[in-house]
């Protein structure tokens, strides 16, 4: 099998550049499915698309995921070899539904994608990051979900030519109606670019105690991050700030973990730090097996003292 026809599906325009770049690296022809408008379609062409398939909005109460059957038919008719679906929430549902229509699995959250001797090879983490699995796809059409950071967007070229096809999709109405869409304040942080990061975990007993961590973070000129339970269970910090296998992967010079136990799912996100520091009151916490500098102590007692001493130095 040769990999010719690459398809990109995304509900987020920001992902178009990276996925098109991936498509150009892996195959010959790149077709992009969008759910937006002509302007965005033109932008996709300058980002590397040869064809854009524009799925119109069938109505405010209709989910774009309900176009899945139409999309699967299109992929089948056009003999798609590889389908790169952006791994947003909607993207994942679309990927699952179209893969099912095609009678295959989804290769999820891949961190690397290559073509070797005509076969598509993917890598992705398993067991919470304890291992990396390499798999060879065996199906005629391969559906993968890809997040940002796997490919690098090429510079846009306004002179690029491509074709826009408007599709009036069949809505495969599966009994779901959108009653309301409430915009949610997302936070714009780029933790993956931060040089110094302080991570907070469940060692903090109450939200107001995070003040202490905020002050420390400012003092050392860092960005603040957290473990998943702080963002999801407690909702004390935004989800853009949790680090790990299912969150952000950091590459800082230094990561300072406060009250974080060091479960593998979290550590996968900080293992690339040049220096790892941890404060934890339990000397048997797994994090102490993988730090450069550690302090066994109650953060409520030691953190204020540490802050004071650093301030005195400055």
């Amino acid at each position, binding site marked *: 099998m040769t990999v010719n026809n690459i398809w990109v599906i995304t509900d987020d325009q920001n992902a178009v550049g990276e996925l098109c770049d991936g498509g150009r690296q892996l195959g010959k022809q790149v077709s992009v499915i969008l759910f937006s408008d002509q302007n965005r379609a033109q932008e996709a062409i300058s980002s590397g698309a040869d064809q854009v398939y524009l799925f119109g909005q069938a109505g405010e109460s209709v989910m774009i995921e309900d176009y899945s059957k139409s999309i699967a038919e299109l992929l089948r008719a056009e003999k798609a070899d590889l389908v790169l679906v952006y791994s*947003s929430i909607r993207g994942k549902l679309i990927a699952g539904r179209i*893969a099912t229509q095609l009678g295959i*699995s989804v290769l999820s959250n891949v961190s690397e994608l290559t073509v070797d001797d005509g076969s598509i090879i993917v890598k992705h983490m398993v067991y919470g990051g304890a291992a990396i*699995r*390499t798999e060879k796809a065996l199906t005629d059409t391969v559906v993968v979900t890809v997040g940002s950071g796997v490919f690098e967007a090429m510079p846009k070229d306004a002179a690029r030519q491509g074709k826009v096809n408007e599709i009036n999709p069949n809505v495969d109405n599966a009994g779901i109606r959108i009653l309301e869409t*409430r915009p949610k304040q997302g936070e714009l942080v780029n933790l993956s670019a931060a040089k110094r990061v302080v991570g907070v975990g469940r060692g903090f007993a109450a939200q107001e105690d995070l003040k202490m961590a905020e002050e420390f973070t400012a003092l050392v000129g860092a960005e603040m991050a957290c473990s998943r339970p702080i963002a999801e269970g407690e909702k004390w910090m935004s989800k853009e700030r949790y680090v790990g296998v299912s969150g952000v992967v950091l590459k800082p010079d230094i990561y300072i973990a406060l009250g974080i136990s060091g479960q593998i799912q979290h550590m996968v996100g900080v293992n690339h730090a040049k220096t790892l*520091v941890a404060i934890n009151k339990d000397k048997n916490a797994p994090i102490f097996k993988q730090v*450069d*500098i550690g302090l066994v102590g109650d953060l409520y007692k030691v953190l204020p003292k540490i802050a004071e001493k650093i301030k005195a130095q400055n």
Partner: protein
Amino acid sequence: MRVITCCKAVPEAQDIVVTKDRQISIEKAEWKFGQYDLNAVEAGKQIVEAVGGQLSGLCAGGKILDNSKLRKDILSRGLDDLYVVMDEKMEQADTYQSAKVLEAAIQKMGDFDLVLCGAGSSDLYAQQVGNQLGELLGLPVVNAVNKITPEGDKIIVERTVENAIQVLEISLPAVFSVTSEINVPRIAGMKDIIAANKKSVSKFTLSEINADNLPNSSSEILSTMAPEQVDRRLNILEGESDEVIDAFVKLLSAELK
């Protein structure tokens, strides 16, 4: 209302041992039901507590599901009964194969109103089996469900997508994957653990649910290897005295220069 919650037993990631040449061994690992499947069990429990009904658990896997401690653990978290599909093939099942087997089991389990899955299995975290199962059953299917409110023969859910919250009206039966923040799973008490002994467990083989013809695997596993390890200095101080703090600050400051 009959709710079916799908749960997968997985080896604890923390117990995985790296042997030589970055090979891994799960031999010594304890098996547990996925952390995020407990949110699905809790979500199901809250629904049947609110509107009445029955909560069934469904799991497919290998021989490990014969372990009665494991089964009792999931039963003690609020299930009324448990359905187990056991076959060696399930140990390496991909998302489509898993969804196919769960679909076949659900056909066998009789009438239902709602199927719940977790945010992702703790070993593969593909976040796909729920989506694929819903599509196979030909039912309304939604992921990232963050709130569930039954309303007669319909259900209202809140779904968190990246930059918005969608409020959806969905006809039943339906298949949802819930988020890990939808609730905090309750901890089983002594009473629940004792009650779990008396709950019914139904065991099936693949042929008993007419699923022995699994679809082909969509991929071939070439390798599963531990990530490259970084050597750390392991300079660990202990204590809260001024001397210890001074020493720690000195080490830290050197890094912050």
